[in-house]
């Protein structure tokens, strides 16, 4: 059967956009200054038809008749190797066999629809480059044109005569003689099999099999490893920990605590105590037990929220990692209760600076600019295709994220009241819906629990995947209909660990038998173990009463979604796996879920001692210069390049967008959406994070993060008494007691702060061992650990969205108030970072005062006294005032003399990053009422000045000008750095 190749070039006179983009990227990565690139996209099509038909296929389906031209020939023929211009070096890039190729799958279906006998398709990209020496060509191929973990590169003519499809798998049952192994042998087995289990765990498994008198099969060992992985069981944080940290007065190791289950006794405990104190008014519905945390919304719906990380896959293949990261977290609400409808996404990223010198990259590390572009595209393509608006996010930069970028993706879903619980019934059928199972994503769960090294790429390439959002959208469409028709009794997503985790969790209380050969496969050749642990994307597992199966099957078929019965939840208390009738695994659910030995660890924490800072004397110009630098620093700079690539308005519920103001370019504090288009009730999405503060004390980092998430939510109008928060801990190697200590200290802070504010944690996740090891030029082992990175995501509510407030200054002559206390807190501040200084007091939170301040701020907004409101964070008062005035296209004149009582120097007043502060714009008619409201609450609200239309930010103190900044220049500095 012929293999046709169809190359599609821009038609004459059309711009070669992809060629120019590639050229620019090669330049940005420092690989070549002026390489010429011609680009073509190509299709390899295996099908039983002649040349004229292949041409017809190209013209009717594949190429655009106005803007493109195509070259059609049997693969390998000369006409395909004629360069379109002067560039003679041909590079072909193809997805590796077995890697998801959504366009190829769609092409097969569409070509068959119009009568072409197509058997297989693979897409490809062709680059024609100008003359290069081999080493440069090699590095361009590897670093700019392709990604080794999912793609293959062929330089020169493509010689192929057929597309690979898998070979049938010869069944062979494999057992592992674990009973005879000791110590190092067990460790070797764990390492070689990529099980990532500890010696104690391996010994427990060995002893279990000794006690039942047989050796395990490979699939049994894998199942246990998946279930016991850090990713699935959170064994470190839910383990026994002995902690010593600083006492309340700072005495080293005076705070000693013994945890049986650290997470339960800190974060969960906070939620329990809040729920108890709320009594009948408890608005938590289902927390820390399902795929997402559920809270009440209105009379008909609950709302759920989950944030996950996908760090390790994103380090190796940024596009696919982030793509499947978002795709995965969307399945969490879909798999919560009886299934929630996703209504918005959030995303937060941590990268090394994109201007990192390419020559300093350690081996195995992708350039951060490439990581960032890939991650953003990955999130974009999944979220946009699913039709879920991505409404809130943040990006942080620090060189320590070089080997370990962080990708946090969140999703919010609405669930009808009464659908929040699920229960698998005995003898229900186990049904898989959605994507087929392939060899992709093998060992994702265990891999994500391990430390990355420069060799990870070759070792764990299989853990990296590309998603297919449309498959997931189709699954969502049928799942919602099946839910409403009552066709299943429980649902969960297939995430880390694939079927092994999904079926294992659902059948935990009952038991399950699984017929592995029944799983629909992408291609032949998978072993029974691969079928069981593959983390292929876009799959959900539902538990279906036998009498409902036919209706579910028909529903799925009617929308082209694949559904297959994989087994039955048999009331045996055992997990029995068979392949064509032969038992390949038989484990007791008890051993899988309760047999893991507890991890016992020591944790100790010593915060950095506070040091004083000798601030340089800065005059008005000095302040303006450093403020400009702050506005242009990566953490503060505008993220519009990212924001605009996300559809943040699909579903029609957008109320406060990520970019606000008359020019749609002001940085909004939080997003407001109406999740039900027919209702006026809104959700408020915000986040808080500041890895720089963790270098001083992770306690204050954690309280600051919660404070920031809260003040962002309150600033746009969220009611502070109903904000649900989520924790995501991304940390280094927690086997080190100091690293674990820094985490426990942050968890204690979360507990304290949540209880004081009455903001329950409803869900959370951790990602540990985020360190990158490599051998440097001298052959010495080097390790880069990420800074402690706690993301707090907040979900608030607003009764009537017409009460929402935005941060852009509205009108000249309105009064400007500073709400909250300013202290001398410059530790980790953007002032010091930009002055190249260290030390200082890290910002702390007066927790009871924070609660009162949020309540008063909300009351002022409810009373419609606030025209605009902006939280103070990086860059303090100076940056907040700049952003507010700039976003409104206006100016601002402030006099900080009233703050003299604080005893702070002007520089501190302008740039301190003290928590729980807001800058508010109030009409002059409302100024007194605003003043009184805060005075009554006992919260500082200082009248600092007015909005004007000068286009300047002018700040005086005792008649002296201390800052004068042209806002056009500030805006330029702020827009420029990430304006890609």
């Amino acid at each position, binding site marked *: 059967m012929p293999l046709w190749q169809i190359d599609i070039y821009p038609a004459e006179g*059309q711009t070669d*956009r992809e060629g120019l*983009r590639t050229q620019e990227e090669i330049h940005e990565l420092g690989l070549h200054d002026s390489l010429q690139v011609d680009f073509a996209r190509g299709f390899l099509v295996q099908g039983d038809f002649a040349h004229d038909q292949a041409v017809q296929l190209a013209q*009717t*389906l594949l190429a*655009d*008749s*106005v*803007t493109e031209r195509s070259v059609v020939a049997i693969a390998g023929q000369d006409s395909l190797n004629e360069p379109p211009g002067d560039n003679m070096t041909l590079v072909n890039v193809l997805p590796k066999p077995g890697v998801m190729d*959504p*366009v190829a*799958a*769609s*092409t097969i*279906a*569409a070509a068959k*629809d*119009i009568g072409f006998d197509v058997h297989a398709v693979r897409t490809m990209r062709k680059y024609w480059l100008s003359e290069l020496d081999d080493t440069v060509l090699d590095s361009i191929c590897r670093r700019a044109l392709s990604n080794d973990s999912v793609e293959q590169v062929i330089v020169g003519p493509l010689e192929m005569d057929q597309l690979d499809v898998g070979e049938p798998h010869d069944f062979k049952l494999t057992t592992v003689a674990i009973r005879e192994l000791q110590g190092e042998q067990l460790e070797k087995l764990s390492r070689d099999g990529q099980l990532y289990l500890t010696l104690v765990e391996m010994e427990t498994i060995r002893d279990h099999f000794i006690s039942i008198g047989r050796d395990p099969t490979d699939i049994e060992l894998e199942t246990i490893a998946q279930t016991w992985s850090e990713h699935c069981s959170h064994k470190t944080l839910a383990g026994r920990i002995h902690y010593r940290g600083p006492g309340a007065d700072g005495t080293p190791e005076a705070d000693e605590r013994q945890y049986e289950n650290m997470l339960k006794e800190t974060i969960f405990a906070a939620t329990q105590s809040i729920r108890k104190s709320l009594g009948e008014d408890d608005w938590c519905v289902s927390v820390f037990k399902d795929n997402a945390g559920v809270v009440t919304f209105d009379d008909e719906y609950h709302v759920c929220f989950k944030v996950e990380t996908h760090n390790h896959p994103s380090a190796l293949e940024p596009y696919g990692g982030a793509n499947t990261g978002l795709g995965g977290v969307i399945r969490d609400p879909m798999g919560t209760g009886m299934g929630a409808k996703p209504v918005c996404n959030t995303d937060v990223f941590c990268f090394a600076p994109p201007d990192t010198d390419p020559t300093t990259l350690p081996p195995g590390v992708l350039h951060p600019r490439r990581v960032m572009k890939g991650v953003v595209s990955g999130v*974009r393509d999944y979220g*946009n*295709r*699913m*039709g879920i608006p991505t409404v809130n996010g943040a990006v942080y930069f620090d060189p320590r994220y070089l080997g370990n970028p962080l990708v946090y993706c969140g999703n919010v879903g609405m669930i009808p009241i009464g659908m929040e619980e699920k229960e698998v019934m005995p003898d229900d059928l186990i049904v898989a819906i959605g994507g087929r199972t392939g060899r992709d994503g093998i060992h994702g769960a265990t891999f994500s629990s391990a430390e990355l090294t420069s060799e990870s790429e070759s070792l764990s390439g299989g853990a990296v995947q590309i998603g*297919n*959002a*449309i498959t997931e*959208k*189709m699954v969502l*469409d049928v799942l919602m209909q099946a839910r409403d028709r009552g066709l299943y009794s429980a649902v969960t997503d297939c995430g880390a660990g694939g079927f092994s985790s999904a079926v294992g969790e659902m059948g935990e209380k009952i038991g399950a038998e699984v017929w592995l050969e029944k799983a629909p496969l992408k291609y032949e050749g998978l072993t029974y173990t691969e079928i069981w642990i593959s983390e292929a994307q876009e799959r959900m597992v539902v538990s279906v009463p036998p009498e409902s199966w036919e209706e579910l099957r028909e529903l799925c078929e*009617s*929308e*082209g979604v694949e559904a297959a019965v994989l087994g039955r939840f048999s009331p045996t208390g055992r997990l029995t796996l068979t392949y064509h009738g032969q038992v390949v695994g038989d484990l007791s659910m008890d051993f899988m879920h309760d047999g893991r030995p507890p991890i016992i660890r020591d944790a100790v924490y010593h915060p950095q001692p506070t040091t004083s800072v000798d601030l340089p004397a800065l005059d008005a110009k000095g302040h303006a210069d450093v403020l400009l630098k702050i506005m242009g620093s990566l953490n503060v700079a505008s993220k519009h390049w990212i*924001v*605009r*690539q*996300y*559809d*943040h*308005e*699909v*579903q*029609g519920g*957008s*109320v*406060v*967008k990520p*970019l*606000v*103001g*008359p020019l*749609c370019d002001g940085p909004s504090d939080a997003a407001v959406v109406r999740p039900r*288009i*027919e209702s006026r009730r809104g959700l408020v999405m915000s986040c808080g994070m500041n890895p720089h503060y963790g270098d001083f004390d992770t306690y204050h980092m954690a309280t600051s993060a919660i404070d920031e998430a809260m003040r962002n939510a309150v600033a746009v109008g969220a009611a502070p008494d109903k904000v649900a928060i989520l924790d995501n801990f991304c940390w280094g190697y927690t086997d080190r007691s100091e690293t674990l200590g820094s985490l426990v200290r942050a968890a204690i802070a979360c507990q304290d702060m949540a209880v004081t504010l009455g903001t329950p944690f409803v869900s959370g996740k951790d990602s540990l061992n985020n360190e990158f090891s490599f051998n440097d030029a001298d052959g010495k082992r080097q390790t880069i650990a990420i800074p402690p990175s706690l993301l707090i995501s907040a979900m608030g509510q607003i009764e009537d*969205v*017409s009460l*929402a*407030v*935005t941060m*852009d200054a509205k009108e000249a002559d309105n009064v400007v108030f500073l709400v909250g206390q300013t202290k001398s807190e410059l530790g980790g501040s953007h002032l010091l970072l930009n002055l190249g200084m260290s030390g200082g007091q890290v910002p702390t939170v007066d927790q009871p005062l924070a609660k009162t301040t949020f309540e008063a701020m909300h009351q002022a907004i409810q009373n419609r006294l606030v025209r*605009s409101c902006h939280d103070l964070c990086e860059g303090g008062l100076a940056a907040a005032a700049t952003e507010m005035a700039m976003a409104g296209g206006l100016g601002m004149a402030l006099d900080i003399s009233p703050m003299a009582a604080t005893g702070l120097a002007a520089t501190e007043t302008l740039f301190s990053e003290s928590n729980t502060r807001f800058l508010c714009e109030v009409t002059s008619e409302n100024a007194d009422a605003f003043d009184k409201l805060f005075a009554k609450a006992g919260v500082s609200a200082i009248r600092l000045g007015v909005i004007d239309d000068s286009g300047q930010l002018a700040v005086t103190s005792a008649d002296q000008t201390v800052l004068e900044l042209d806002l056009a220049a500030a805006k330029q500095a702020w827009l420029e750095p990430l304006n890609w």
Partner: protein
Amino acid sequence: MAAPRVLVLRAPGTNCDEETAYAFEQAGGITERVHVNRLIENPALQDRYQILCLPGGFSYGDDIAAGRILATKLRQYLAELVDAFVHGNGDRLVLGICNGMQVLMRLGVLTEGIESDNHAPATLDWNDHGRFEDRWVDLVVDETPCVFLKGIERMYLPMAHAQGKFVAAGPKVIESMQQAGRLAVRYANGDHGKVQNEPLPFPINPNGADANTAGVCDASGRVFGLMPHPERHIDPTQHPFWTRRKTQPSQGDGMAMFNNAIEWFS
């Protein structure tokens, strides 16, 4: 006359169907969201409806090119249905929004009757900057027979697409389409910008479209496709700076299009 019935077509990857149906309902229509497979099984279903709407999304992933696969499917299996709505007795309406416009362009119904040699008279190409963009745009309506735009002079709507650059096969195409009022709605410079063919710079013309074209209709004005999303501006709080206004209008700019469609049948 009874309220017109609107067929909101769903396909794998369609994702603006709910809010688009909601907008038609707010205007007084009766809507049904129907999967393309149901129509293929039972083409007679189409008799129930007076309006065919192809909403936004990524039909079939926009794999190969935006809207291409759904257009191919419609041409292969539902040619009669398309013909009945587009031509028929001239008593029905067709609206394609964003991905829906992409599908209508690939089907050729928006450029029908325009001469060009050997290839389509026009197409929708990648945005000039080569990526997806979500941005609010000022639009101005040209003199046009378009039913949906009756009485509308300007609109402020969000666009959200990657492949929405209208490219005509030559100046003659632009000329004949413009003369027939078929380049019905254009990107404009602010809220006073006029219709002009001279390309406006980014971001006023957000994708580099020829003649600043944002929406195109057929010769009768009953068949209309546009890239920006009218269904995303039917409520005042969808406006990107509604918080700056001291009073709010009763509805957003996009609502008038849906009202026009329903009123056409009264």
